[in-house]
């Protein structure tokens, strides 16, 4: 369903690459991709290598032409000049010409985005300060570290105050302090009304910053939703038992026997002697049997609930399901 608030709207998008000179080979990089990125959100795109994440971004920017389907960005057809004027983009492994300095690179990319030199000069100091390159703007890019180049890339993406910022692995090569700074910058941009479309394979980064996520595997969107929705407990999620025995010393061993062949985590003994065990039980019958055994052993079941997944678990689960 398409909403008016969506900044990126993709429906049944397909991209097929053709390779080989004599025997033409087809590679379906995107297959019937449908997603929406709401305005003002930080949206994450997750997927294993070769899933089609970068291809999707390139289609949205017009760098790669779609084979079929629809893709609109900021109300324009993907790739249109009018759309690109309002987008800031930081590609993965970007290369800023080595003969440029930090400030001349900003001037170059600013002018390419349609800014005047005066406008660039007015905005550049603040941006350089934000990305932590203040004082290094006169240095040649050839002397920058990977992290510094990444920061400069981010600065150029933000220079023309875009409504949509697309970042492809923005924290690649950036140290932990830098990553935190970048996260803060992105949050601030989001608060200011900009939409951030983030492509990263660093699940922790996505989990920390993104409000919504799409998971892409084999060129297909497997799951979309908020991080909370994605990590909600599933039927197959482990059960977390909080147990209390009559004698603290023997409870752990007795409890283990009750779980039988089920996969259990190492029991965690709480300060008040309460024992916490994560167990993955095959079906309801197994659950019933375990409860009966525990009760029979005189162990009290203080609580029992299914545990939420981490994003990594959810991601791996989805990837596993898709057979990648």
């Amino acid at each position: 369903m398409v909403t008016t608030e969506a900044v990126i709207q993709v429906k049944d998008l397909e991209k097929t690459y053709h390779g080989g000179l004599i025997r033409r080979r087809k590679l379906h990089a995107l297959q019937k991709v449908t997603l929406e990125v709401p305005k003002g959100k930080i949206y994450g795109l997750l997927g294993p290598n070769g899933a089609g994440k970068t291809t999707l971004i390139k289609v949205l920017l017009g760098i790669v032409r779609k084979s079929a389907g629809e893709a609109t960005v900021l109300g324009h057809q993907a790739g249109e000049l009018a759309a690109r004027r309002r987008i800031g983009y930081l590609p993965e492994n970007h290369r800023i010409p080595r003969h440029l300095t930090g400030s001349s690179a900003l001037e170059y990319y600013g002018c390419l985005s349609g800014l005047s030199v005066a406008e660039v000069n007015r905005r550049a100091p603040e941006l350089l300060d934000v990305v932590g390159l203040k004082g290094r703007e006169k240095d040649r890019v050839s002397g920058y570290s990977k992290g510094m180049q990444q920061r400069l890339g981010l600065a150029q993406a933000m220079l023309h105050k875009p409504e949509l910022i697309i970042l492809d692995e923005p924290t690649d090569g950036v140290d932990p302090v830098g990553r935190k700074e970048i996260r803060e910058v992105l949050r601030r941009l989001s608060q200011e009304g900009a939409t951030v479309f983030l492509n990263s394979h660093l699940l922790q980064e996505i989990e920390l910053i993104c409000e919504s996520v799409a998971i892409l595997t084999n060129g297909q969107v497997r799951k979309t939703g908020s991080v909370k929705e994605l990590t909600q407990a599933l039927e197959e999620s482990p059960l977390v038992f909080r147990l209390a025995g009559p004698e603290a010393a023997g409870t752990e061993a007795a409890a283990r026997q009750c779980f039988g062949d089920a996969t259990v985590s190492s029991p965690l003994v709480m300060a008040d002697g309460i024992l916490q065990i994560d167990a993955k039980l095959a079906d309801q019958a197994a659950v019933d049997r375990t409860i009966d055994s525990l009760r029979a052993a005189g162990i009290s079941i203080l609580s029992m609930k299914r545990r939420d997944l981490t994003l990594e678990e959810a991601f791996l689960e989805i990837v596993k399901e898709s057979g990648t």
Partner: protein
Amino acid sequence: MRPYIAVLKDSFREAMASRVLWIALIGIAVILLLLAPFGLKIEKATQLRRSEIANFEKLLQAIADGQNEMQTPAAQIWNQLTDEQKKQLKRLQEPEQQAETGRDRRAGSSRQREVVTAMNKLLDNPDLFDKTSWADVKLPQEATDLIAQGNLGAESSKRLNLLALSAAFPKWIVVTESNAISLVYATATLVDSIPLTPSQFELVFETAVVAVLSVFLGFIGIFASLLVTAPLIPRTFEPGEIALLLSKPVNRGLLYITKFLGGCTFTLMYSTVLVTGVWFLLGTRMLFWRTELFWCIPIYVFLFMIYFSVSALAGAIWRNSTVALSVVLLFWLGIKVVEVAKVQLEDNLVRSKGIKEITVAGDSLLVIDGRLNTRLWNPKTSEWDEVFRVQSPGGPDFSSRIWGANSRLTHTFDSATQQIFSLQTTPGRFGAMGVPELVAGSADEDWERIPLGRTPDVVETVLIDRSGRVLLPGKDAIYEYVGQTENQQKQAKFLGAFTGGLLGGGKAFRSVKVDKYPDVKKSISSALNSTSDQILIYSEGDLHLLNPAEDGGYTLQTSVNLDTSKQAVIAASGKYCIVGLGDGRVIVVDCNTLNIVTELPAEPTAIPRVCVAATDGSWLAVLRHDESVTLFSGDSGQRMSWSPPESGVCTAVASSPDGKLLVSDGRLAVRQYDIGSAQQTAEWSQPTSWVYDFYDLAIYPIWSALPKPSQLDRFVPFVMSGEDSVLVNETRGPPGSVDRESLQQERETFNYNKVFRDNAIFVLIMLGLGCLYVSRSDF
């Protein structure tokens, strides 16, 4: 536009950051600094130059005659000569076995040097000039001033001697420039008094500057620029850079073109620095201020664009600078191979075997090919057989072709004696062109070339009037060939061979009486009106009409100035005379009044080469260097709308005895047209070999489709000379040996528009392909 200006600016930054540019600029600076101390010193000329002696033989003769004279310049000179110099002079006059025919160019050149050295030694003598001896000579004002000054220093004395000498022998010594040039390096004089006139020096210098710029810009500069710019496009299309660029609001095609133009900034900077430096040095040190030099900048940038457009396309496709450079190299090689093949086929086949002149000799049809060989149509074999061979073994060899390149070799047919007459030009004893030899041939004699004797003076045309007189207009007179007995012919041949024409043939000719023979200068063109026997002589802008007199002589009827100093080709018949001028104009004048009837404006790229008039006066034609034919009506003198289909590829035009138009197709065919009906009435065509087909169907079409960077490279000489056409053979032969003004010289016309259009189309196609590829590719 802002994004594209940013790309251009970035390219400029990139070029400035390039080490190769700085190395190139430092290299240029060093070269310019090394050249800076070179300079010219211009002083009053005190020495005679080789080119200023118009006729070595006659000058020596005039001086030798001084021994029998009293108080004349020649007598004074003779008296001032040492015994050794007198012996030397006599020796120079004597025929030498070593170069008995005068065809040994080196020997002639060596004799010239010897004479010039001897004359200059003579000029060093402060006692050479003697007022009494020069009493009857009109001295120039400068000489009079020097005499009035008195007590002359050594240099002034030499100068006076030079002026006096040239005033004494104005026909044989022509001092064209009053200054002499010395080449200096800092304070040291490298070459004192260069043996060239300032204008000759300028010409040589111009050629040298063009050659140097061609090497530094056309070759090294472009190669260096290609090396520097080859990675530009592939680097731009690297995934990390192109993704960032294409995410910006820029059009892909325009981005590609802007990057391409940005790549040209390197060549622009390189050539601007070099040309400005050279221009400044030449101006300050050599007083050679030529703003035309600045044309080199856009020309070489454009030249670079041709190669770079290929490099850019290859770079965009393969994204590899090595591949891009290799493709450019292959492209360059391909162009060269096609060019060389075309030039070789044209030189050795199309031009050399192509028909250049046509003569109808009774029942026979004769043509002259590009190698100056005479060929006769053989109806049995349908081929042109070589006849009228030169006596020397092997026919007209390469050097004689070059030496005769600026003369028009034609045959004039005398219907009364059924003979053809022709002038055979050969180098004289002193190297320069000597007087020609009149030769004849006939079908009865199996077209054997029979020498009739050397003409008394330099003549260029054989005219035959209605009574069968063979007339040869020269600078001083019209000579008539009066024939010789067989013995006389043998004697003339023998003497001619010995003396290089100095004595031979004299008895065979007599001067025709002319009332007020016009004052004609260095070069003349003449024509005889076949219907009235009027003779028209053109010389450096003046057209003279000589009417036949009752006593067999001629009378100068009238003269007209055609407002030019260029040479001309003329023809006359019936009511009109047609004049094709060196400035490109074609004028038809009334044969009785010389009033202009029709004047076609100058076409600098289509200079007239030959003018022909119909034997019956029904039409006149001009054949130009662009191989086009324009016809004029013999009734009205106005231009005719019809021209033969061969116009544009035509290399020879002639009239048949019954007034039909004969034209060649530039190859081996002659076609006859009836002007009235505009219909072809006859054809003589030798089948062409497969090589012609190869040229027509393969080489020429490929050459036409490919760009022509070498033509662009040749643009500079045209700009520097300020002319629209340059001589093809100018670089052959010794300096000054080529008559640059001659309309017979094979000229290469530079069609600015065509060359730029052809090359620009190629660049645009390459850029278009590049844009298309970039626009349709995924990155």
